[in-house]
Structure formats: structure tokens, C-alpha cells
């Protein structure tokens, strides 16, 4: 189960499992965003390379406009995957 949407604060919230079966839906949502975007990952349980690709593609698009993605409330397991992937050097990341 994967969900993506806006919080009342305007941040994007993701929850569940961002895997290859859900990547297209996540990409479609994130493609509609402009400017700097904060993604709250408190409820995100899992991300695979398909999900990493969605984040990277979106970050590159937004960074072209000098903005970008900020990933907040990242759990330890997902932070490990970001570190293995080198994403900790590419994104502003705040862990839980």
C-alpha cells in the first residue's frame, strides 16, 4: 500500500511502500510540483531503486530551477538506502 498527497502544511506526505509497482503513480504526482518541495517520509516504510529513480528525476527537474526536494523524517532503514545510493550527498535529508 502506497499513498502520496499533500498535508495541510503544504508538504507532501508519502506512506507505505514505494516500489516498482507504485513508482509511476508517485512520478505522476511529483511531476505536477514546482518550486521547492518538502516530502515528509515519516510513514514511508520502504523504498526500492524504482522509488529512488522517482526522487532523483524530480530533484533534478526542480534543481534546474534552483529549487529541489527536501526529504524529512526519514527512518533509519531508508536512510541506510539513501546512504548506500549516495543520495545523502545529493538531497537535504533529515532523519527521525
Amino acid at each position, binding site marked *: 500500500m502506497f499513498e502520496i498527497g499533500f498535508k495541510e502544511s503544504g508538504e507532501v506526505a508519502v506512506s507505505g511502500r514505494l516500489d516498482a*509497482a507504485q513508482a509511476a503513480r508517485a512520478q505522476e504526482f511529483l511531476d505536477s510540483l514546482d518550486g521547492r518541495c518538502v516530502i515528509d517520509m515519516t510513514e514511508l516504510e520502504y523504498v*526500492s531503486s524504482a522509488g*529512488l*529513480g522517482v526522487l532523483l528525476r524530480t530533484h533534478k527537474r526542480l534543481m534546474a530551477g534552483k529549487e529541489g526536494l527536501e526529504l524529512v523524517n526519514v527512518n533509519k532503514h531508508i536512510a541506510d538506502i539513501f546512504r548506500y545510493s*549516495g543520495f545523502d*550527498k545529493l538531497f537535504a535529508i533529515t532523519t527521525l
Partner: protein
Amino acid sequence: MQKKYSRNFDQIQEIVKDTEHFFAANNIDDSLRMKVDLSLEELFVNMVNYNTETDQNILVEMRAIDKGIEISLTDFDVERFDPTLAPDVDIDAPLSARSPGGLGLYLVLKMADSINYQYYDRKSKITFTNRVSAE
């Protein structure tokens, strides 16, 4: 456990559910789940994406081992493709030089404690293990 899955990303949810049941039934440490789920998905997706000349289902086998789990995925009637030879990823590259894709097998090679590839009779079989003691 042995089970075949059709070549469809929708099967990932079924694989996750079956893995959860296997872990519970065999008292395998849940701390291994993230790594196991990731390697399983990446290898399954790789077979679906790149072994396109077949419509045969993919066989997944799980076996409890000392302090961990051994999992094999077998693809049938396919050309040789050894995931253990996947090119390295420069994780220190700047954003401008990074592109989506290529990370899946790289992560498998990082996450698995051991990984082995066999090719015979047009069958492509990859086996990996994860153990708590190797954490």
C-alpha cells in the same frame, strides 16, 4: 517455499506478503526484511525488464538457514545475464552526472551477504543470502 510469479510488477505485493509469511513461519529475524525485500524486488524487476524474450513465470524459492535466509530466483528460457557483473555506480558523482536507473543491482550487491549466479539449460538462477550475524 517454492512459488512461481507472473512477469508483472503487480506481483511484488504478493511476493512481499509471501516473504512476510515465510519469515513468521520460520522465526527469521525481522531486521533482515528490508534488505531481503529490496534484493527480491530488484532481482525480480530486473528479470521482468530485461528477459523479455520469454513469458514463462519466475520461480522464487526461500529456505531458512542458520541465522538467516537463502533466496533463489530462476528465470526460464532466457539468455545469460549475470547480475553479479553489474557495473559499479559512482555514488560520489554530482547531481548533474547522476541518472535514474542502474542502482537496483548495485544495491543488491551491497545488501546481500552472499550472491551466486548459475546459468544452465537456458535457466538463469540467482541465489542470495542474508544473515543476522553478518549485520
